[in-house]
């Protein structure tokens, strides 16, 4: 049994009450996390001391802003085992995943010249995704396939909500891209990436990892994982909204055409044509979310201060408590692995005969915030034969008493609609 962390006091929002004075029990971290005071302070300090356009001014505040912005890049790079130049700021993970797909589209349309030819997709080429994906790592690939004539194939899920690694021969010589999640936001399953990366490398396909749920809850090192690209969002890992990261292997980024174009990513612009800067600038058009990158820096510093190993152990403990508690509520079915092995503290479940909206409403009435719906992952719900589910998810600030309150609330739900 691990010693649980006790950090809720760092998070201003968590001491509020809801629905007429009930203390808030926040179990919706899988959707978005709350932010520690240290993050809010960092953003505030930037805005009231160092705010200026970065990479653009010769004046002192502009220098300070540039250092804060690039310092944040360095901090995040270190946090995920990347080089400085391999970190591209995006507004969220969704943009990061789309960025890869659109850069490949642009290459296919002849942009980026000969260097970018390796990213072109032809009719008959295949893109492999998985049935477990969040829509953010599925729909952009459907769109890319539709535009290039490539064919979409997918790795199915097992009955306990994991990627079915027996079916890796979906990845073939025709496969050009393999896009898959590092951890599911529905089943909580953590992917064993090694066989997928190995298979993709064997056939020369690019790997794109959705690290939204993993980067927030586990130690990750993209260089060690050997993936080509990875995307994650700040708001899920204690950072502000409006900032995310795309990781790309330097050698690839250097050869890829830009997607968004405009200021701060060009070298020479004439009316007729434009040359582009090297990465990461090439992919950061216009004025960026500077204050939010500073918040993101503070967030990874906060997480590093705790230690991602400790955080993972903390959440592992909570996942166990969640699973054990739910198992005692009659009839409730967990959509995902029933043990904590390779699993996040993200637990979606079905209460037969009671719609998730109604489950959520009764919990909300007791001050317990969970998420209901399809969690932006309709296919995996369909695989489980349901339409939607209720999901409880924990974070660094979650305590055992939060879990207990939730389990008690769930008993109430069953009673109310029983």
């Amino acid at each position: 049994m691990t010693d649980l962390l006790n950090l809720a006091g760092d998070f201003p929002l968590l001491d509020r009450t809801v629905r007429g004075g009930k203390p808030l029990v926040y179990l919706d971290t899988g959707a978005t996390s709350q932010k520690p005071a240290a993050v809010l302070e960092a953003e505030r300090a930037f805005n009231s001391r160092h705010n200026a356009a970065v990479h653009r001014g010769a004046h002192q505040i502009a220098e300070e802003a540039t250092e804060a912005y690039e310092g944040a890049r360095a901090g995040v790079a270190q946090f995920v085992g990347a080089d400085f130049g391999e970190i591209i700021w995006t507004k969220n993970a969704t943009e990061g995943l789309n960025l890869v797909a659109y850069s490949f589209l642009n290459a296919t349309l002849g942009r980026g010249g000969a260097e970018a030819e390796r990213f072109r997709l032809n009719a008959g080429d295949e893109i492999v995704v998985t049935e477990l994906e969040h829509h953010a790592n599925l729909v952009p690939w459907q769109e890319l396939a539709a535009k290039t004539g490539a064919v979409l194939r997918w790795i199915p899920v097992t009955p306990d909500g994991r990627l079915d690694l027996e079916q890796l021969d979906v990845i073939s010589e025709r496969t050009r891209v393999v896009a898959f999640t590092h951890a599911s936001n529905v089943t909580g399953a953590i992917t064993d990436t090694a066989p997928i990366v190995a298979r993709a490398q064997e056939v020369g396909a690019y790997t794109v990892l959705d690290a939204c749920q993993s980067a927030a809850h586990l130690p990750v090192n993209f260089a060690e994982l050997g993936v080509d690209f990875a995307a994650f969002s700040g708001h899920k890992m204690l950072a502000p909204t409006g900032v995310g990261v795309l990781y790309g292997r330097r050698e690839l980024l250097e050869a890829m055409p830009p997607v968004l174009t405009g200021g701060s990513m060009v070298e020479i612009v004439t009316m007729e044509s434009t040359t582009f800067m090297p990465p990461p600038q090439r992919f950061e058009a216009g004025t960026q979310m500077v204050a939010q990158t500073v918040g993101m820096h503070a967030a990874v510093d906060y997480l590093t201060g705790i230690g991602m190993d400790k955080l993972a152990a903390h959440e592992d403990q909570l996942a166990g408590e969640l699973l054990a508690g739910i198992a005692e509520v009659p009839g409730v079915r967990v959509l995902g692995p029933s043990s904590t092995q390779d699993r996040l503290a993200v637990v979606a479940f079905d209460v037969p005969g009671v719609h998730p909206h109604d489950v959520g409403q009764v919990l909300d009435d007791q001050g317990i915030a969970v998420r209901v719906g399809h969690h932006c992952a309709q296919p995996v719900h369909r695989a489980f034969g349901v339409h939607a589910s209720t999901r409880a998810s924990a974070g660094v600030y979650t305590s055992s008493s939060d879990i207990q309150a939730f389990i008690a609330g769930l008993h109430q739900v069953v009673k109310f609609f029983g």
Partner: protein
Amino acid sequence: MEQLYQQVILDHSRQRSGEGELQAPDGESFQVNPTCGDECTVQVTLAEGAIDSLAWTGKGCSISQASLSLMYEMVHGQPVAEAEQLGETFRELIHNRGQELDEEKMDLLDDLGAFTGVGRYSARVKCALLGWMALRGALAQAQPTQA
């Protein structure tokens, strides 16, 4: 809770009226609630300016199912204009943040008044209105364009 889940809502969500499909609808509309993927289809036939028959299918929460069931009971057989009027008044109620409307309107709404509490929960507004949106779509399709 009891304010939101009035008995009539719970009853209608279990014992649903009007579920089914028509063979030859004059109008039909499919609606989705994108938050949860809940969906419903409403079909109508018209005769002499009235809703001659109405049927619906769908999956969703107790609020959306009860709303469809009660809608069926209240509008089927009614003149189109009255059904539309009722829909407008219901929309007004649901957007009233949990407060009742004036007496006349509450009288008109009858059992639909049980949904008053839904207005307090903005995330549930769409649930209560999903069926009515589909009804509006189905009626629009069934009627010769009024231009």
